[in-house]
């Protein structure tokens, strides 16, 4: 069996005009859970050059292709985590309450072992997010877990929608109000900071429009000073970016809906949204989406109240909902997290699996590429021993673009790529740094989501 993952930085040259590697594989005789088009027994899935070429019975084996026998196994689309902070070296530029000009995609860490662990949980794509220190944080990065590549650019999900982190409530209030003595100190302040930022974006957009008009009359019109902070706010108002808003309380969720309405913005996914169940009809009416934890709350005051039925209530009210990890640990068993909605809310199997596949794909603007097993979509597949919603299931094989990135039968103990030459024992050997929403802010909290 060929090991696809290069497990050390070697003298092998990393190609400069590096193409993203694509693979071929035929998965035979599995129970194929397409999520969008039902479950097909004894079915083959053929992936050629990274794309799903055929989903059918008895596909003829192309010459020289790797064949995986999935008889008795479950084949599902690769899992998508709509809220993660793995695989990036910076989470919060927490030095200003409004930082839409920063991109976590500039800080991709191709060597983060967390990616391999996520692959071992069937995850193939993640939404690496800026943290929640700022009312308007940085732009996020949708990534494919092509662990084993060294060029950070190889992890970018080409063509994914632009997304940006917003944060309401205690985190921006604490980091900036309490920590730095500036706005926002209260929830009122958070609203004011967001409104100001939109207004500045509007003024900036007007300046450029004026410049474009004036330039036609006088080619010597000087352009305005370039400001990506304001430009990004303008891009949000122009519908080019999907807001991903950290939020807990129903009142603040409604507040943001009002602000967005005032500035003509309609693309938003609320993150965490633990009181989303209280305002589910309002969210549905606005067209807002929601990405939640399965059953996690009470880790700080503003999130003292929630319910494990949150996801099911949102789904039943017509809100496109996903379940996310926000953690390097939960990301390894998002299939368990989704399964909890069977117990709390009696969602169907497909509804439950949609929470970690097609729904997050819609929230990230990648649903034409991933999130279900359909001909023409990317060859991102997770294969499980039992039904993925069974507590007894085990992820066996994870495929990204037709390339096997995790194989339980070929799972070396040490999957690090970049080894610190002066480190006798790896830091992750029992002493791991915890990822989280408030990483890179100097404040230490015991709970930080």
């Amino acid at each position, binding site marked *: 069996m060929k090991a696809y993952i290069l497990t*050390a*930085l*070697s*003298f*092998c*040259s*990393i*190609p*400069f005009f590096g193409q993203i590697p694509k693979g071929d594989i035929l998965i035979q005789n599995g129970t194929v859970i397409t999520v969008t088009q039902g479950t097909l027994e004894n079915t083959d899935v053929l992936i050629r050059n990274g794309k799903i070429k055929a989903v059918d019975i008895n596909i003829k084996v192309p010459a020289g292709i790797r064949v995986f026998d999935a008889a008795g196994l479950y084949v599902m689309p690769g899992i998508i985590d709509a809220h993660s902070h793995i695989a990036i*070296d*910076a989470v919060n*530029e*927490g*030095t*200003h*309450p*409004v*930082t839409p*000009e*920063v*991109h*976590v995609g*500039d*800080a991709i*860490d*191709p060597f983060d072992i967390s990616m391999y662990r996520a692959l071992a949980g069937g995850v193939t794509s993640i939404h690496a997010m*800026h943290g929640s220190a700022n009312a308007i944080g*940085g732009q996020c990065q949708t990534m494919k877990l092509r662990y084993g590549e*060294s*060029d*950070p*650019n190889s992890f970018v999900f080409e063509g994914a929608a632009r997304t940006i982190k917003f944060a309401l409530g205690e985190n921006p209030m604490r980091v900036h109000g*309490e*920590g*730095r*003595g*500036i706005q926002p100190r209260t929830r009122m302040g958070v609203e004011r900071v967001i409104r100001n930022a939109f207004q500045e974006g509007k003024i900036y957009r007007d300046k450029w429009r004026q410049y474009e008009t004036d330039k036609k009359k*006088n080619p*010597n*019109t*000087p*352009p305005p*000073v*370039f*400001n*990506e902070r304001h430009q990004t706010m303008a891009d949000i108002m122009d519908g080019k970016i999907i807001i991903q808003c950290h939020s807990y309380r129903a009142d603040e969720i409604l507040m943001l809906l009002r602000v967005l309405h005032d500035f003509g913005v309609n693309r938003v996914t609320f993150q965490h949204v633990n009181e989303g169940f209280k305002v589910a009809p309002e969210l549905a009416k606005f067209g807002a989406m929601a990405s939640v934890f399965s059953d996690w709350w009470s880790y700080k005051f503003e999130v003292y109240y929630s319910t494990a039925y949150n996801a099911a209530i949102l789904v039943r009210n017509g809100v496109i909902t996903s379940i996310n990890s926000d953690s390097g640990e939960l990301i390894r068993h998002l299939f368990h997290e989704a399964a909890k909605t069977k117990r709390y809310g009696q969602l169907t199997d497909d509804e439950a699996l949609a929470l970690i596949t097609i729904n997050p794909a819609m929230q990230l603007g990648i649903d034409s590429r991933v999130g279900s097993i359909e001909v023409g979509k990317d060859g991102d597949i997770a294969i499980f021993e039992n039904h993925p919603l069974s507590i007894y299931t085990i992820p066996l094989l994870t495929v990204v673009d037709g390339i096997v990135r995790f194989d339980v039968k070929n799972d070396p*103990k*040490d999957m*690090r790529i*970049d*080894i*610190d*030459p*002066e*480190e*006798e*024992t790896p830091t992750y*050997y029992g002493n791991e740094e915890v990822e989280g929403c408030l990483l*890179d802010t*100097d404040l230490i909290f015991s709970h930080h989501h």
Partner: protein
Amino acid sequence: MIKKLQICLWIWLLSVPILSSQPVHSELPQITGCVALVNAQVVTAPGKSPIVANVITRNGLITHVGPNASIPNDAYRIAADSLFVYPAFIDALSYTGIKEQKEEQGSGGPPGPGNRGQRVTVDEDGNPTLEDAGLTPFISTRTTFDPKSKSIEDWRSQGFAIAHVVPKGKMIPGKGAVVVLSGKSTDEAIWKEDISLFSQWSGADGNYPNTIIGMIAKWRELYNNAEQGMKHLAMYSEAPMVARPQYNRAHQALIPVVKKEIPVYFRAPKIKDIFRAIDLKNELGMKMVISDAQQAWSLKEYFQQPDLNLVLSLDLPEDKTEKKKPETKTDTPANADSTSQVSIDSIKVDPEKAAFEKRRAESHKMHLEQAGHLANAGVPFSFSTMSVKSGDFSKTMRTLLENGLTRDQALHALTVAPSKLLGIDKYCGTIETGKMANMIVATKPMFEEKSMIRYMLVEGTLFDLEAKEKKKSESSASSSAAGMLGGTWAYVIEIPDQKREGTLTFSVQSGEVTGKVTLQEYSGGEITLVNIVVDKNSVSFTFPYTIEGQEIEVEFDINISGETFEGTVTAGPFGSYPVTGDRIEKPD
């Protein structure tokens, strides 16, 4: 008349040994401005075999090289029969001569509840000043250059004649200069000014930009506005009715970068740092030199693209395996049978740890082999010294030679390659008629274990390094050291807002000085001092110390005056602080 000149010459020649043993300055007096290296083994350029030749220099230039080059009457002759002459080294990126800066840092934002510390000022948008943000492309090396800095002598003593020196700072510290390591004043030392922009991934410590994402966004903002400002400026000077451009100092200072007149030396030690810098170059379109690189070995193809060059760091990772050996030995009786020792060890080994150890050793080896590997792959590179101490230079070079770099490749990376990179290859890098008289005169072939630099010629100025060596050995054996230094001293280190106290104890026996230090906050008892050097009243020494799990070298440089001393303490990367002390106990 001729006779008189001869007598003068005699007196002058006779006086040389006396002068050279004077400890004050190792620079020989310049009388005629002419030096002749007679019958030396000369390597004129990397790749060339040594030839026996005379080298004549005058007024800072090499005037003749060859076996028959005649020796002018007024030349200061060096009988170099047993000596080896090489072109002097060029440091592609360094802080040589840059003053240590005291940094005062706040965490941003105005004072308020929960914000009682010292804060920097921010504008109404919440942004700190350019200086507090570490965005000072308008600063030239000159402003923090000290021609009397000891680092100049230190690096010159290792064979360097020219250095590309950049200011210290945060993300964009300023513009670099080519410096000749002999000048007595800043004007004499600085040869070419503002030839580069220096940048690194260093955030503004709690101010914007603090993290890598903030820094990259800031680079984009600065570059795009510099580009825009440049166009605006052109319009303003050419067309009527154009508003006056009001771009800031940082934007203005970046215009030469936008015009590709000067390259950006981007300090990028690790592979991720390198990728990010190259991405920035490709996005914005500047000329770039990836600098101080420690992990560039797998990026060979990247360095084939135009406007991208490479400077490797001389900072090699420490070998952690060798350190452990003496510890295991001390645990066992001296007469223990070596075979039984092996079996005891092999029982103790945790297989998981052994696997980690194996991978760590492989990675370590890869770092050491990088230079040789890149040289064999035909990737041109120079070396930077900014992350290393001058005292480790020759050892580092030997390590690189043991790991695949050839002597010629090493010499190339220290002479011809940096001269091309810095655009001074017309003037330096080889020993040729008409080039700057920058030469190393060594006792053995370069980088051999016992090879010592006997003289350095820097733009014709002759430095006698043997005098310096003598000085150290003589004075450390000096019997007066006992009376001056012996006994116990109490010291106080002044770190802003805190004091560190402890004691130093010195004893001198048969000319050898030993010493120990105690630290108030350290419960581990006395630490033995190493590298004790006594020179008249000045004393320097070091000792290892662990701060937050990181072992650093603490260095004391003090001047003793009777029963008190004062000086500085350098705590590895944590900075330098003033120290004072009093003798509290005389030796018995």
